[in-house]
C-alpha cells in the first residue's frame, strides 16, 4: 500500500500542493490530468528522484520519503523507456538482478520474457527495436525486480493504435497477476477500462479521487467534468439483435453501436454534447431515439447540463439558446437522439 500525505513542493513557478491519496495493494490507480498538471513530478517523488518540501510518502506503513532511490522497492517505467543503449535486451533485464546467482538470473529473464512475449528480443540491441518493443523491454526490466508498486508514466501515449490495444491487454494481465500499478496519463480513454481507482489532478492539486464510476458519473467540480468530458459512462454488454449490434447497460438501456464484438463486456461512453434533445421524436437517420424524463437542469461554465432519466441517468449538454427554444423544464418528458458513431465502447 502506498500513501501520500500532505505532499507539497515548490518548483519555482509551479507547486505541488497538499497531495493526499492512497494506492491500495492490488489497485490499478489511474492519475488523470492535463499535461503540466504535475503528474510526472509526483511519480518522480514516489520513486525518490525528487524530494518533497513537506509531507510524507509511506510504503506499506513505513516512511520512505527520504529513503535512497535504490533501496525503495518501487519500479518506474519512463515515458521515453530509458533503455540502456549500450546493452543488449538481456543485459538490460539483468541489470537489477546484480548479485543474484547466474541460474536464478536466467530463470527470471526466461520467465518475464515469455510472460511479455519478447523471448525473440533478448539478444537484440535497443537501437534495433520499435517503440512498442522498447516499451515491453522497459516493463520487463522493471517487473523483473518484483516491485511493490509499478509506476507508469504515459505508457500508451507514444505508440500506434494497433500496438496500443496489445499493450493495454498486457497491462491488464500484469495487474491481474496481482501487481499494484499507478498509471499517469492525460488521456482518460486509453486506460479507463484498466483502472480500479482514479484521481484527477490539475495545477499541482488532486481534485477528486474515487472509482471510475464515481468520478465519471459524479464529477466533483467543473474542471473534472470538463476534463473527463464524459459523464455518460456505463458498464455494458454487447448483443446482436437481427444482425444489429447493441450495447445493453445495467439499467437495460439499449444503444445502437457500430464497432465491437458480440458478448464483449466493457463500458459505453457518450459525450453530453453528442446527445440531441427535442420535444418530439426527430425524423433523422440517427438510430438511437428514446424518451426520458428531465430530472435536473444545471448551469455550468461549459453549458447547460440536463440530466434525463431513461433507464440510465444520461447527461446532455446544450446551449442557453437551445434551452430557451426547447421549453425544457424539470419533470418534463423529452426525446433523446444519439448517432451510433457518437457512442464509444471500451472493452474491459
Amino acid at each position, binding site marked *: 500500500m502506498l500513501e501520500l500525505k500532505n505532499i507539497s513542493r515548490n518548483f519555482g513557478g509551479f507547486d505541488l500542493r497538499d497531495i493526499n491519496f492512497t494506492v491500495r495493494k492490488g489497485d490499478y490507480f489511474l492519475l488523470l490530468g492535463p499535461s503540466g498538471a504535475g503528474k510526472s513530478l509526483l511519480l518522480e517523488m514516489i520513486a525518490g528522484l525528487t524530494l518533497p518540501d513537506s509531507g510524507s510518502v509511506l510504503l506499506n506503513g513505513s516512511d520512505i520519503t527520504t529513503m535512497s532511490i*535504490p533501496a525503495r522497492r518501487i519500479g518506474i517505467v*519512463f515515458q521515453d523507456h530509458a533503455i540502456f543503449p549500450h546493452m543488449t535486451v538481456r543485459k538490460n533485464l539483468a541489470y537489477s538482478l*546484480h548479485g543474484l546467482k547466474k541460474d536464478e538470473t536466467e530463470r527470471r529473464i526466461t520467465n518475464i520474457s515469455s510472460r511479455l512475449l519478447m523471448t525473440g528480443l533478448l539478444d537484440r540491441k535497443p537501437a534495433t527495436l520499435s517503440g512498442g518493443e522498447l516499451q515491453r523491454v522497459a516493463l520487463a526490466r522493471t517487473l523483473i525486480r518484483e516491485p511493490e508498486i509499478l509506476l507508469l508514466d504515459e505508457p500508451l501515449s507514444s505508440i500506434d493504435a494497433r500496438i496500443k490495444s496489445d499493450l493495454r491487454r498486457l497491462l491488464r494481465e500484469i495487474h491481474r497477476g496481482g501487481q499494484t500499478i499507478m498509471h499517469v496519463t492525460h488521456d482518460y480513454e486509453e486506460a479507463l477500462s484498466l483502472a480500479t481507482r482514479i484521481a484527477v489532478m490539475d495545477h499541482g492539486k488532486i481534485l477528486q479521487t474515487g472509482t471510475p464510476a464515481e468520478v465519471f458519473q459524479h464529477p466533483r467540480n467543473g474542471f473534472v467534468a470538463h476534463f473527463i468530458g464524459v459523464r455518460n459512462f456505463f458498464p455494458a454488454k454487447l448483443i446482436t439483435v437481427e444482425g444489429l449490434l447493441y450495447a445493453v447497460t445495467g439499467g437495460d438501456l439499449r444503444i445502437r453501436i457500430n464497432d465491437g464484438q458480440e458478448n464483449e463486456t466493457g463500458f459505453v461512453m457518450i459525450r453530453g454534447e453528442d446527445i440531441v434533445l427535442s420535444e418530439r421524436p426527430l425524423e433523422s437517420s440517427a438510430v438511437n431515439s428514446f424518451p426520458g424524463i428531465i430530472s435536473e437542469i444545471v448551469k455550468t461554465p461549459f453549458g447547460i447540463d440536463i440530466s434525463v432519466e431513461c433507464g440510465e441517468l444520461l447527461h446532455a449538454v446544450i446551449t442557453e439558446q437551445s434551452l430557451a427554444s426547447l421549453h425544457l423544464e424539470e419533470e418534463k418528458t423529452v426525446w433523446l437522439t444519439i448517432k451510433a458513431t457518437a457512442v464509444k465502447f471500451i472493452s474491459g
Partner: protein
Amino acid sequence: MLLGALVLLFIVAPVAGLLFSSSPLKLFETIKEQEVRQSILLTLLVSFTATALFAVAAIPFSWLLARYDFPLKRLVTAIIDLPVVIPHSAAGIALLGLISRDTLLGRIGSAAGINFVGHPAGIMLAMAFVSLPFLINAARDGFMSVPVRLEKAALTLGASQARVFLTISLPLAWRNILSGLILMFARGMSEFGAVIIIAYHPMITPIMIYERFTSFGLKYAQPVAVIFILIVLLFFLLLRFLSNKTSR
C-alpha cells in the same frame, strides 16, 4: 580561399620542412642513440603516468561538473581552464613554489623519499598541470551527452550511485573520455615550459631538442625533433580516428 590556403600553408610548411630536413639515415642513427631512446621512453612513460593517475580523480570530477549545479560553478570551470591560458613557464614557476623542498608538499615528498625537483614525479606534476584541462573538458562534454534519464532509471533499478557511474555513465561517455585521455597524454608529453623549470634532468625529449639546439645547433636538433613529432602525430591521428567514429 587564398587566405585560407596561406594560413594552412603557414602551419604545414614548417612541419613538412622539418620532416624532410633529415635524411632517413640520419634519423636511423639518431634513434640508435641510447640517450635519445631513453629520453623518448621517459617522456611517454611520465606523460602516460600523469594521465592515468590524474584520470582517476578527474573523470569522476568531470561527471560532477556535468551533473550538478553548485555555488561558484562558473568560477570552478574558469579555474580549470586557467592552465591553458597562463604562460607555461609561469605555470612551472608557480608549481615549483608549491613543491620545492622547503614547502609542505616538498617535505611530504622528501619524507617519502621523493624530491620532486629534478625527479620524474616533478615532471609528471608539471605535465599534468598544463594538460589536465583537456581531459576534464572532454570528459565533462561526454557526460553531458549521456541522458540523465538513463542514470535515474538505473538508480530505480536498485543500482548504487557508484555502480550507475561505472556501468551507465562511464561506458556511454567513453569515446569522449578516451579522446580526452589521448589529448591529455599528447599535450603532456609535448610540454616544455613548465617542465624545464621543475626538472632539466632527467631530460624529456622537448628539453633534449632545446638542449641540442642551444649547445650544438639546428642540424643536431632536427632529427630528434622529427622523431618526436612523428610519435606525437601518431597519437594525434589515433585521436582524430576515434573522434570521427564518435561523430558518425
